[in-house]
């Protein structure tokens, strides 16, 4: 008979105080639609400041969709809209006066497939500050700081003019993280940032996330439960459910401290998923 799957719980060396949840995002009754199709239904969630929140669940459960609401990336998809509310601090993220471009300057994003621009390493990092009206003067130090924070500086400092595409996949992904950091966002959204990487590169990114959580709020979508267990402070478990009309929607099942989700989940579906009985 199969043995119990192993789920490693890795505690950060300096445990952060999770009791005091200082909300950056407050999601209230969120529905997300693509045209007439309701992809995600009725999500309530709070993202804490300078914490790592993981969103896990099987394919099609809407976790990426919810993530893309936080920086209004879904606006770029024709027909996408939301019901319900997302508060960013105390401001309605979808309020009439809100400029999505301004939102994305505060809330950065890292994607599943590393997507460096086909420019030099330097120009990749400098892109965001330049677009956001950064004066030429101290751009060099901005680039150095971002690359240092992304733990990439030592590897690329001698070839800043080389094409970003000459880097390995893992380096490219750290470059994309550095690129996001360079505009000094408050939040970094990561959409399965390691799923295209090998285990060593994955470990580096995970270590980096721990480091970045000292300064940034991080929300990560991952397929990999072990990864969520290793890096996150809180975990939101999503699943896909078929409603009375036979339509699939993504739903949030359980949201709690990662520790509790992986050792003592409140919901049977969460337990089934994390022990590998489903999904």
């Amino acid at each position, binding site marked *: 008979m199969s043995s119990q799957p192993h789920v490693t719980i890795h505690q950060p060396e300096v445990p952060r105080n999770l009791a005091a949840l200082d909300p950056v995002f407050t999601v209230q009754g969120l529905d997300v639609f693509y045209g007439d199709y309701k992809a995600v239904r009725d999500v309530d969630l709070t993202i804490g400041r300078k914490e790592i929140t993981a969103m896990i669940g099987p394919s099609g459960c809407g976790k990426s969709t919810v993530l893309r609401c936080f*920086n209004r*990336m879904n606006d*770029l998809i*024709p027909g996408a809209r939301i019901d319900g509310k997302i508060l960013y601090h105390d401001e309605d993220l979808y309020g009439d006066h809100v400029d999505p*471009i*301004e939102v*994305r*300057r505060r809330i*950065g*994003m890292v*994607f599943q*497939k590393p*997507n*460096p*621009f*086909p*420019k030099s390493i330097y120009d990749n990092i400098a*892109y*965001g500050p330049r*677009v*956001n009206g950064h004066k030429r003067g101290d751009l060099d130090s901005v680039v150095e700081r971002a690359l240092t924070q992304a733990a990439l500086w030592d590897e690329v400092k001698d070839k800043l003019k080389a*094409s970003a*595409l000459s880097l390995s996949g893992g380096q490219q992904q750290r470059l*994309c993280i550095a*690129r*996001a950091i360079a*505009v000094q966002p408050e939040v970094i959204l990561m959409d399965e940032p390691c799923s295209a990487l090998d285990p060593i590169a994955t470990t580096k990114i995970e270590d980096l996330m721990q480091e970045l959580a000292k300064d940034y709020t991080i929300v990560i979508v991952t397929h990999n439960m072990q990864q969520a267990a290793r890096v996150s402070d809180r975990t939101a478990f999503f699943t896909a459910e078929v409603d009375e009309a036979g339509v699939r929607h993504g739903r949030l099942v359980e949201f709690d401290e990662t520790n509790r989700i992986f050792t003592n989940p409140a919901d049977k579906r969460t337990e089934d998923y994390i022990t590998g009985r489903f999904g």
Partner: protein
Amino acid sequence: MASAGRGVTAPGNSLGRSRPRYGETAVKVLLLAAALVSIATTVGIVGALIEPTIKFFGEVSVFEFFASTDWAPLFSPPAFGVIPVVTNTLIITLIAILVAVPLGLAAAIYLSEYATARVRKALKPILEVLAGIPTVALGFFALTLVSPFVRSWWPFPMEAKNGLVAGLIVGMMIIPIVASLSEDAMSAVPGGLREGAYALGSSRMIVSLRVVFPAALSGIIAAVILAISRAAGETMIVVIAAGSNPTFTVNPGKEMPTMASFIAQAGSGDLPVGSIAYDTIFAVGSLLFALTFAMNFISARFVRRFREVYE
């Protein structure tokens, strides 16, 4: 009982080829032949140009051809200074490019980055139909409608057939080439790059101009090069709308026959084969060929140097 059959191979069954595949060879030869036809055509053209061109330069000095600004090869006494038709070609091409590149690129950026899928699906075929309008029709459009209109606005004296109108209409003719090929190049830029740029707080215009455009640059330049070659070699519009009287001028209000239109006009007359006037056609043809080839060659190197490889 089953063991009797297991592991027994049919007699003579080896891994060698059991029978020759003639079909495969035939297809390969056929495909190679198809590829060779276009190369052979180019070589054939060059070959046909060389002999009369050499004969031409036996009678007319290279110096007169390239240094004199007097072009009247069909007159008596003839004059063989090719400079006027060359500058006319360059000026008309320049006007055409000034029209087609901004409009074509704007159209391409709109279709690729701004238009909804539905609008794009409706507009792009229309744009491509534009490329199919016979140039003889465009030539008459230039002469009968555009020329009177432009003359009524032009502040300087302008002949009914002139380089400006011809250039404008040649420009219109090549807009679809620039727009359609550039749009293809920009649409081919991976969506992930756009997402990355948007996620950094870029507006649509910034994404288009600072990320998509540079990433598609090699394709866009290829489109422009093709358009320039088409403009430089365009014949019918220029024959009809730019006249046939070659003066050495940069004034686009004057008649401006080009190399291509000279070839067409001279070639459609009844020049005796082997006469010096007849050989002139080939000399000009060689020059046009050489200029176009040089331009393609230089720009190909240029593209290789500046393109952003995104994969």
